[in-house]
């Protein structure tokens, strides 16, 4: 067996252990269990959204206007009624859940990838590039990101979900980058890294096999906070009426309710779905974060006394 084989075998074993321990921890921690089950049911709704809406609306977009009678109260045909444009509220709700989650996870993925590039490699290598990137990160952290994103979305017309997510992510990477950087800085001075260098491991090997596995919890928590931040920002942007009217998200649903007179006319059932879904998204992601924090950060575990 060459050294490479040993390494890859080792990583395979390692990832299996991680998977196994992940499921163990999820069952063990009540917060993780509740959080992941709420989030995965929302994700299931998002996955089956095309199917459900395809059957219920017969291939029509849930944002299409004038298909059903206007302002119906909840019934078997329309579990959440219809709005003032004759759209099925339940169909809009599950499209909204899907799109909001898509934006959130896109922001999460982009933000954590940028954060990894900026912090992992730079912090390990150190030097001028690291200093520059670190100052850049700190400036980004100061900027009022939501306000700037709102300005960008207002000026750039014709935005789809991906572009909005990219705009939000261009600020959202800075927080996780700083977190990961401080972890990498503390890890790279540990004796086992010196040992790895002595054995002759290349920098890339050290980064991917010695450092990355150890900062995995921070990456997951950073990802999850970026998802929360992404959904929070996108919902806020849509709430004030920015973005395309045909792209349903939960924020747009709340905006419709607030501005179209539905609230004054007393169609309160319209708002229950979007508000509860948003609360469930935020609570479940937060529970997952707290659960992970408690598992991987023993100091915090002692502090919270759980």
């Amino acid at each position, binding site marked *: 067996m060459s050294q490479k084989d040993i390494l890859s075998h080792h990583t395979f074993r390692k990832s299996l252990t991680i998977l196994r321990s992940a499921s163990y921890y999820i069952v063990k921690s009540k917060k993780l269990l509740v959080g992941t089950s709420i989030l995965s049911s929302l994700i299931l709704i998002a996955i089956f959204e095309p199917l459900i809406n395809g059957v219920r609306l017969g291939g029509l977009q849930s944002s299409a206007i004038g298909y059903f009678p206007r302002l119906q109260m909840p019934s078997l045909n329309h579990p959440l009624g219809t709005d003032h444009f004759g759209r099925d509220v339940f169909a809009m709700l599950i499209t909204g859940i899907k799109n909001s989650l898509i934006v959130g996870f896109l922001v999460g993925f982009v933000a954590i990838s940028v954060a990894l590039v900026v912090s992992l490699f730079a912090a390990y290598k150190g030097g001028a590039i690291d200093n520059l990137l670190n100052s850049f990160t700190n400036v980004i952290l100061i900027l009022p990101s939501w306000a*700037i994103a709102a*300005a*960008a979305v207002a000026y750039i017309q014709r935005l789809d979900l991906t572009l909005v997510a990219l705009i939000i992510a261009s600020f959202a990477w800075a927080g996780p980058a700083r977190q990961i950087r401080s972890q990498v800085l503390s890890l790279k001075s540990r004796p086992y890294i010196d040992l790895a260098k002595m054995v002759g491991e290349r920098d890339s090997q050290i980064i991917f096999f010695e450092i990355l596995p150890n900062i995995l919890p921070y990456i997951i928590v950073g990802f999850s906070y970026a998802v929360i931040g992404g959904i929070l920002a996108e919902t806020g942007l849509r709430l004030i009426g920015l973005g395309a009217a045909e792209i349903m998200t939960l924020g747009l649903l709340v905006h419709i309710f607030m501005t179209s007179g539905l609230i004054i006319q007393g169609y309160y059932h319209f708002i229950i779905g979007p*508000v509860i879904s948003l609360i469930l998204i935020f609570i479940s992601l937060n529970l997952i974060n*707290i659960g992970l924090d408690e598992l991987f950060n023993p100091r915090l575990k002692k*502090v919270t006394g759980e």
Partner: protein
Amino acid sequence: MFSQHSGIQRYIIRKVVSYIVVLFLSFTAVFFILRLIPGNPIRAYVYMLRSRYGFEPIGDRTIQMFEEMFGLNEDVFSQYLIFLRRLLFEFNLGPSFMAFPTPAQELIARHLPWTIILLSVTTLLSWFIGLILGVIVGWKRGTRFDNFFFTFSLIFSQVPYYIVAVILLLLFAYIFPILPSRGAYAASLTLFDINFIISAIQHAFLPALSIILVSMTGWLISTRALVITIVGEDYLQYALAKGLSNSRIFTRYILRNTLLPQTTGLAISLGFIVTGAFLVEWIFVYPGIGALFVNAIGLLDFNVIQGIIMLTMFTVLTANLIMDLIYPLIDPRVALT
């Protein structure tokens, strides 16, 4: 004595210099980020008017005239110099578009008091409530009281203000209409008297409650964590062993030691009293900076947008500087490092 003095001087100079540098960098960053928008602010504004109202209120000659007036026909770098000169020497953010020719800073100044009142009161109240609850909960760790408040706080600490605002608006302004749903005071009141104040409090109640309910939870969580570490310290065990009364330990030992770090936190969060709750203000049509910002965004009022963004950075950084400057008075060690 002398060396300590110069240490503090060096500390203050370092903090002030870095404040100026960071302020300059962030203003520059925002200026150039906002110039990335397609076209220029005037053209974007005119296109918005055209597409929204379906007519051409302004001809191309007029657009050019306005562009010259705003210095937009020059290259970005000279625009930047003009902007800096105006800001530093005239304290001028340029005219607003939606209330032309009122300068943007005048519009902002008109809305600022409402936001500062609402958010300073909510920040202080949520700090106070969170601190008191956090100390009690940390002291009574493991009881049912602790479990309830701590779990509630953990779960709701990440729920955004605006969701709570929508729920409260629905519950207390529409389903049970006991509080006003919009504005900052009843429009019929023009004199500043007791009725005006009562009306202002009624109008601010729901926006304030939605902010306090959420931001209180953060203070509760951090205070509880502090109290639990303090309870584990040797000096507290010693005080307990000495047989000091519970109330004495509670006020003299625990409350005092949580107060210092939490006051630091309060100072930092006071920096956010401008940005804090843009969307809450919008939801309750509260005439503060947040509502002004959302209006400016909707009408592409460039100078107001840029002005508010820079104002928020200015307050956050200035609050941090003030914090840095008074910190050596509380804890002299920081100046010596």
